[in-house]
């Protein structure tokens, strides 16, 4: 079953502003959203999925132009142009590097939290931060 949501509902769901949602549609990042006779936008699941992708890509610091290309690849991976394929490959590598860094950070923080929990006097997290300063 397809769920249809209004722009306000989508804004709340994705914690984006309604202006941003309208802007993405205006610049073509999001295809024209279907509208009721009254003119109210009705976002479908496919639109939400696309917006979630845009949001994730933005959090990875991709530009809107890059995201536009990545969306083309997402829509039709078999027929993507060579440069879009290359961009996507490069971005995949960037994501993998970030993941490795994040994983390392996650493990470091987990270790520090465990040490801090076990500590009766002082906290290694603070010691570590002071060391780095």
């Amino acid at each position: 079953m397809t769920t249809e949501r209004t722009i306000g509902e989508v804004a709340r769901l994705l914690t984006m502003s309604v202006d941003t949602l309208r802007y993405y549609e205006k610049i073509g990042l999001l295809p024209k959203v279907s509208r009721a006779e009254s003119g109210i936008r009705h976002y479908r699941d496919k639109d939400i999925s696309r917006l979630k992708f845009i949001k994730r890509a933005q959090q990875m610091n991709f530009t809107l132009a890059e995201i536009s290309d990545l969306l083309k690849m997402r829509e039709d991976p078999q027929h993507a142009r060579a440069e879009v394929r290359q961009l996507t490959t490069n971005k995949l590598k960037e994501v993998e590097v970030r993941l490795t860094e994040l994983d390392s950070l996650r493990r470091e923080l987990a270790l520090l939290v465990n040490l801090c929990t076990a500590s009766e006097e002082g906290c290694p997290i603070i010691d570590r931060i002071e060391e780095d300063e």
Partner: protein
Amino acid sequence: MGVDIEVFTSTVCSNCQRASRMVEQLLKEAGFENITWREVNVVEEIDHAVAFGVLATPSIAIGRELVFTALPSRQQLCKAIQHYLASRRTNDDN
């Protein structure tokens, strides 16, 4: 060739000194010669500890592999060292 056994410790854990002492004594008493070991303070060498996947102290790595994530019994430690020595001999033979 690096150190054979690394005992990951911190100043905040009560079992860390016991773990280091146990390794030191066992190597001496059980005649594990040519086995090197060192104590790693995880706060001072946090990158090294994280690379091993250390999440708590004490943890013990044997042959660059994290084998214990808590204080082992003397028997468990002895068995792990014997296992390591056996695999090292196999590698040397091949």
